Every structure is written in C-alpha cells, then in structure tokens.
C-alpha cells in the first residue's frame, strides 16, 4: 500500500545554512510515526516543507502521492508547537473559521466543532473568547482544528504541552482513535513515555540528518537500548560530552 507520506532525499537550506540534509522516510496510514530530535534539529523545518510552507532545496515530499498544496487542505490536520488561534474570538468560531478554511461548509464546520468540544468537555465554553480559556483548554481547541474533517494525515507538534495528566490521556486517546480510523499521524514530542505508548515507528534526527529510523523495537535493538530515551541520549551523548568538556 502506498504510504501516506513519502519524503525522499530531502534537503533544505535557509538563509545560507543547511537545515536538513538528505532526509528520507515514509509514514503509513494507520500508524503513529514519532519524529524526534533536539530543539533546532530540523523537525519543524521538515514539517513546514512537507505542508508547503518552505520550498525544498532538493528531494521530494509527498502527501498521498503528490506535493501538498492548499487545495488538499482537507487531507492534513496540523497542530503547530506554538498555539495559533484568534484569542479574541470564541472557541466555536475559531473551529468554524478554520473548518471553512479547510473546505468544509459553515454548517458542517460548526457541527463538527461543537461535537469535538462536547467530546473534550468544553461544550459549556464554546462561546467564550479563547483568551478566557486556560492554556490547556486552548490546546484542546487547537487540536480540534487539526482533526476537523477527519484528515488522512495528522501532524501534531508537542500536542500535550501544557496539559495536565487527565487531559493528556484524553488527547492521546483522541490520537489513537484517529489512528484506528486509518489516519497517518506524525507525532513530535520530547516526552519519551508518549513515544513508548503511541509510536509504531520513529525517526530521530540530529543536525538535520537521520540518526535512527524504523519501528520502535528495531531502533531499540539497533542501539542495544531498553528504551527510546536511552537511544535518544546515546545519539546526543557526544554533544553532551563536548559541552561537559567545555
């Protein structure tokens, strides 16, 4: 079966600096693909290139067999690391607005938004301006925008940031639900326990280059490690040692 996401020999140079070098990976339908790396390693730049915000210097990035354009908006649900909603607008209006932007009708978007708010326990706050909601509640609304329209590909960049354990579990359940529905999920996180719980396969990058790629089991075996956290630490150990020496 054709992968939902196919990245081949992707390189990206921004402002004269090579951010990503010759990266290749695939994400299949119905799997959670953990995309890991330290801050500034090139994860966000790769994602932005995948959804057409940056133009690749070389290589190809395909979603559902083609280069992504805004015409394929319903294919993708993106939850960026920084919250990006309109704080002076109500939760339901944010959801409706972005739903329409994706290509849903206003009625559909509103209905889907209300159903999502009900699911995450925010139905009574639907008409409150976003700035009146807590950080965690805003994060849930942001997730609602991402999952609007049941996209084939979900890209979630640190989706549980700012959430308490109860709401974190709620969100992870939603992710698993979409995975079971057949969506491909690219999951970016610094919390290795989430990787262990959710991820089917993973990619760890460092300085824009792939360092570990494959199923969770394969990667652990490759690095002779008992946890993904161990793998991560070993990949970045040289840097830590250099900093220690300095």
């Amino acid at each position: 079966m054709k992968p939902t996401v196919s990245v081949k020999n992707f390189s990206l140079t921004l402002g004269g600096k090579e951010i990503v070098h010759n990266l290749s990976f695939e994400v299949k339908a119905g799997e959670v693909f953990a995309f890991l790396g330290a801050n500034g390693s090139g994860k966000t730049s790769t994602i932005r290139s995948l959804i057409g915000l940056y133009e690749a210097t070389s290589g190809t990035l395909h979603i559902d067999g083609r280069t992504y354009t805004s015409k394929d908006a319903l294919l993708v649900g993106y939850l960026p690391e920084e919250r990006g909603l309109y704080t002076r607008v109500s939760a339901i209006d944010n959801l409706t607005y972005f739903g329409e932007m994706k290509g849903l009708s206003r009625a559909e978007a509103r209905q889907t938004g209300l159903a999502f708010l009900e699911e995450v326990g925010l139905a009574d706050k639907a008409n409150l301006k976003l700035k009146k909601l807590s950080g965690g509640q805003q994060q849930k609304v942001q997730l609602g925008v991402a999952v609007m329209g049941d996209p084939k590909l979900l890209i979630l960049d640190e989706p549980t940031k700012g959430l308490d354990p109860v709401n974190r579990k709620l969100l992870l359940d939603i992710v698993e639900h979409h995975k079971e529905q057949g969506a491909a999920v690219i999951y970016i996180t610094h919390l290795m326990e989430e990787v262990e719980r959710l991820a089917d396969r993973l990619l760890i990058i460092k300085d824009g280059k792939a360092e570990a790629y494959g199923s969770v089991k394969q990667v652990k075996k490759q690095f002779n490690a008992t946890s993904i956290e161990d793998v991560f630490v070993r990949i970045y150990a040289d840097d830590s040692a250099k900093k220690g020496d300095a």
Partner: protein
Amino acid sequence: MPLIFLFIFILVGIAGNSENSSFEKLAEDLQGVAVIDASGIVSPEIVAANGQTLLPIAEYESARQDVEAGERKGLIYYPADILETREYEIYLSGVDFVFSTSVSEVGGALLKSSLYAPLGSEERITLAQIGAEGVTTTYANGTTSVGFTRFIVPGVITVMFIIILMFSIGYILTSIADEKENRSMEMALTYLHPKTLILGKLISVVLITITQLVFFGLVAAVSLLVAINTDFVQLPPNFDITALPVDPLAVIFGLAFLVVGFVMFAAFMAFIAVLLPAKQANNFSAIFYILPFVPTWFIWTVLSDPANPVVQFITFFPVTAPTTSLIRNTVGNITPVESLISLGIMTAVALLVLWLTIRIFPKGALEFQNPLSLRAVFSKK
C-alpha cells in the same frame, strides 16, 4: 452616569441665571461711562442713543480724576489727532475683565458707527460693513466655463483618498502583523495559498474603507445640511448644489488615482508586515503616512507651476504620486498624458510589490523575531 449629567445640567442652569443678573449690572455700569470727543468725529446722537454721557472737552482732566478717585466708572477720550495716531484713550475704575472688555467694545463701536453715519442709508452702512460677494464668470475657449465649482467633485475624490490613507491602509499591516505575532498565520498558510490570504485581506480592507467613506460622507452631508439651514454656512449666490459641473475625464482619472494609489499603499503595508517583525513593521510604516503628504510642502508650486522639476518628480515618484496627481487633477493642471504615466508607474509598482509580498509571504509570516534578509527576499527558494 445619568446622575452626573443631571448635576452638570443643574450647574449650567444656575450659571445661566447668574449670567443674566450680571448682564444687567454691566449695562448699568456702562451707562456710568463718560465720553469726551476732541476729534470731532463721534456723533453726540449716537453717544446718547447708546446710553453714555457726552462731556465737554474742558472737563477732560476732572473727569479723569473722578475715575481715578473711583467716583466715575469710566471715561472714553477720543483725542484730536486720532486720524494720525489711530488710538483713543480709556480710563477705568477698578479691575474687572468683563467691564474692561465691554468698555473697549463700546469705544470702538461708537467710533465706527459715527464714521458710518454720514453714509446715510442703512443699506449703504451694511454694504460698507460687510462688503459684497463677487460673482465670477470665467471664459475658456470662447465659451463660458463653470469656474471653480468644477474643482468640487475631483476635490472630494482627493479628500476621500486622504481619509483612506489616514484611516484604512493601516488595517492590512495590523492584521498581518497581529496574525504573525499570535502565530495564527502558520495555521492559515497550511490551508490557504498566500495569494488567497493577501487578496482576502485586500478585499476586506476595501469593504472597511467603503463603510468608512459612507459613514464620513453621511456625517459630512448631514452637518452641511444643518449648517446651511441654520445659516451657519452661507453658500454663494447662484450656487446650485444639485447642478455641480462634472468633468468626466477629471473624475475618471481621480477615481483611477484613488484606486491604484490605495492598492499600491496597501501592497506596501502588506510587504512591510511580512518582511519585518510586528513592532518594527509598525514603526517603519510611519514613512507611508508621511511621504504621501510631501506634496503639501510644495503646495503653491504644485498649484501654480506644474512644469517645475520638483513637481514633475513628485508626480511620478511612486510614494508621492497619488496625492500629487490628485491635487493636480483637482485644479486641472495635469495633462492626460501625465496622468496616464503616473497611473502606469503606480500600477507597475503596486503589482511588483504585491508579487514580492506573495513570494516572501510563507518565509516572512513564519519569521517572528527577525526581519527577513534581502537574500531570503530575492532567493529563488
């Protein structure tokens, strides 16, 4: 809040009553002012009719001493050499601003009325006092021209452009800068092409602008109607507002300058908002509120010497072109060829800036802290 207003109304009412009794006292005090005329100009009948007492010249010193001693309220003395010095003397007992001002007014009024009196009829006095309106007939090319009333319609278009510049252009910068700052731009760009985003913002600014223009237009129209009906504003005789002359070419060019100028400035604002972080963009945008008004620094030259090199330069330099062209179009000293060249330059600049903006939009929209480098602006990828 209503109680505060009620309290203020009551205070105004009390003040009003108090004012009435002060006026009566003032009138009484003014009757205590004596007048001595050594010039021979002031009419005794007018002095008497006004309620003052006319004293002989010989009593000047004693009358002045009476005022000094507080026995007389005031003295107005018109000296013999008033025609050379153009000064008369006022002596007052006590320090009272209102009384002092009133006596000064009385002194001036007595003199003026006395000077007008020999004219005879009231109509002649009125004519001397307020003058008369000149009605101009202008000829152009052997026929009667409509004169300065032809400036009104293109002038209104110029005013509309200034309103747009002051109140509307900034919206596009603010909306892009705010969305960059709150990161919603990244979300929007995932689902929309930059061209769609920018055109959408331009259309919304156009709609806001039209709403503002309609609002300001209504307020201006109602204010003008009220002012005309209450005689606060008096229109020239033979002026018919329903028969305003319209020069089609001037109107077409005026509207073209307005639309193209608006698009050009909106493009500049969008470009700055994408290129720079929000705070820097807001600061830098001030240049686009100042430069369009540069033509007003040379307004007399623009009006009287359109061939002047400076006027020619600001007619075609993109940032000053709209206002200069609109002013020249209003007074009719811009040729159709110059108008077309100015419009052509503005259109080209608007399209270029819009194209650049769309091109750098994704990069700039995601650059929150630093301005985009020139390399990033002009790089192929």
